[in-house]
């Protein structure tokens, strides 16, 4: 994951709040939120190697498959539910977002923007599914089964009456970094959405 989106999430999560991080990876974000903003909470992860890293960091992590839903979490039991770079790996992304907004008062979601120019260029000119540093998988072995663009995600938000509190595009390259503010769907590599009901 890029460091820039961590910075943005860091700013959007209130100090001393209770956070659930879905697909928390190695726990770096939770560790940072705990040490810098006294945020408490849990990570949810399914990959044993990532869980091991969380334990080594001293981050609370619970092994769980997000595709089985969040039924074990009570309504509004967290201030913020996070999910970074995992939306596109889910069987039913829209149902998980619904669940995130049931469990948390707010949620923050990041995902790779499939509408970014590189992906468009790749598909348009090579005629093959995009493979990049950020998305290094072939179509047949990728965990990323539900790609979307900024525009796609905003349509989904409208259809479900999810309120967008903040949105931000981030990009690693300096040129795209400037252009993404004008044409996020074309130049943003990663989309970050802050939602509530």
């Amino acid at each position: 994951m890029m460091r820039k989106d961590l910075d943005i999430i860091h700013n959007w999560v209130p100090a001393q709040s209770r956070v659930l991080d879905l697909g928390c990876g190695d726990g770096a974000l939770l560790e940072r939120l705990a040490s810098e903003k006294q945020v408490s909470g849990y990570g949810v992860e399914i990959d044993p190697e990532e869980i091991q890293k969380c334990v080594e960091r001293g981050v609370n992590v619970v092994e769980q498959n997000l595709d089985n839903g969040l039924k074990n979490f009570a309504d509004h039991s967290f201030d913020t539910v996070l999910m970074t770079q995992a939306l596109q790996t889910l069987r039913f992304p829209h149902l998980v977002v619904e669940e995130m907004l049931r469990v948390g008062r707010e949620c923050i979601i990041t995902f790779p923007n499939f509408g970014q120019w590189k992906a468009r260029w790749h598909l348009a000119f090579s005629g093959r599914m995009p493979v990049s540093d950020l998305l290094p998988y072939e179509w047949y072995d990728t965990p990323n089964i539900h790609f979307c663009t900024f525009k796609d995600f905003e349509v989904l938000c409208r259809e479900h009456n999810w309120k967008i509190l903040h949105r931000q595009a981030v990009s690693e390259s300096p040129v795209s970094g400037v252009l993404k503010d004008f044409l996020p769907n074309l130049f943003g590599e990663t989309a970050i959405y802050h939602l509530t009901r």
Partner: protein
Amino acid sequence: MRKILTTEAQSHHSGKPAGLPANSVGIVESKSHTFPGPFKLACGRVLDEYTLVYETYGQLNADKSNGVLICHALSGHHHAAGYHSASDKRPGWWDHYIGPGKPIDTNKFFVVALNNLGGCHGSTGPTSINPETGKPWGADFPPLRARDWVHSQAQLADLLGIQQWAAVVGGSLGGMQAMRWSLEYPERLRHCVVIASAMKLSAQNIAFNETARQAITSDPDFRDGRYLEEDTLPRHGLAVARMIGHITYLSDDGLGKKFGRELRSGTFEQGVEELVEFQVQSYLRYQGDSFSGSFDPNTYILMTRALDYFDLAREYGDDPVAAFSHARSKFLLVSFTSDWRFAPERSREIADALMHANVPVTYAEVESPMGHDAFLLPNARYENIFAAYMNNVARELTDSARSEVAQ
């Protein structure tokens, strides 16, 4: 990632006898202490005094903050690690996980393992003499609950000068004791490690235990539990009880991989009449026979009943969240995928209740074909996660020692 040494190596510098593994705690000695009563039990009865037998591994530090209590399961005891003599063939029951450089690292922790009250390895139990009658207690020994064990373990902690455990650790029935510790003495432990356990047994679990108890009590040598007075022993019944237990502690897959339908003797050849014995039959009988020679049938009944009776949230309005809201420790939970006796769902329920109660918890569901027994056996992922967690527990010790020096 760390690797546990499993090769036998001669130790040159630790004073351990040659031939013992280098990462063993070495030769250990059991101690015992008789605690003066009155000791009131959950059932209302009172013991005038009781004896606990225990072992310790590692060194207690100056501020007595590095104690780790090991709570044993159904058939466990105080001999959790190391060897009783240089010729001892088998180490303690949790030797894979307790020792220098192992997950419960005896270079860092002072580990205390005991035989629970009601046990048959030296602590006061059904084989002890009832002071009122001068005869063995037998079936008259009071029924015990996990909380009785926890209260007696707290007296052992007092004896050792341990006000607060760095961690209370247990698998299966031992995990139930660890959880009970977190509610009965929330300030007396910093970490609670609960492996392959449950907040209460299912009806199916109780049913297995009852079948095992019936096997014992229906043995003609049981004599209403007074077999010691009458100089008999319901060995056969206890062996069958253990066989039932053993089947349920393994998985279908595990048994299949180990034995399949392999024959030990006999043949299916047509025209030949020869009695067939499957490998799994002989294995189970061996397990039953060797267990029944070293365990007390009344203790088996007492321990399985304590398992059945355990219900973490009973005194908290049957609400596990309300129960765990009293806990002040952090939790590590581990379950094993093929464990159907204490299934991963049971551990997930514990994790959910802890999260709802806002208690710090880490939960791992470890892939293993070994069923419930997995908690005793080598498993790389289990070892790694257990070691990483305990390493953090140890790091807290040095951090707090340093901050005290700074003050």
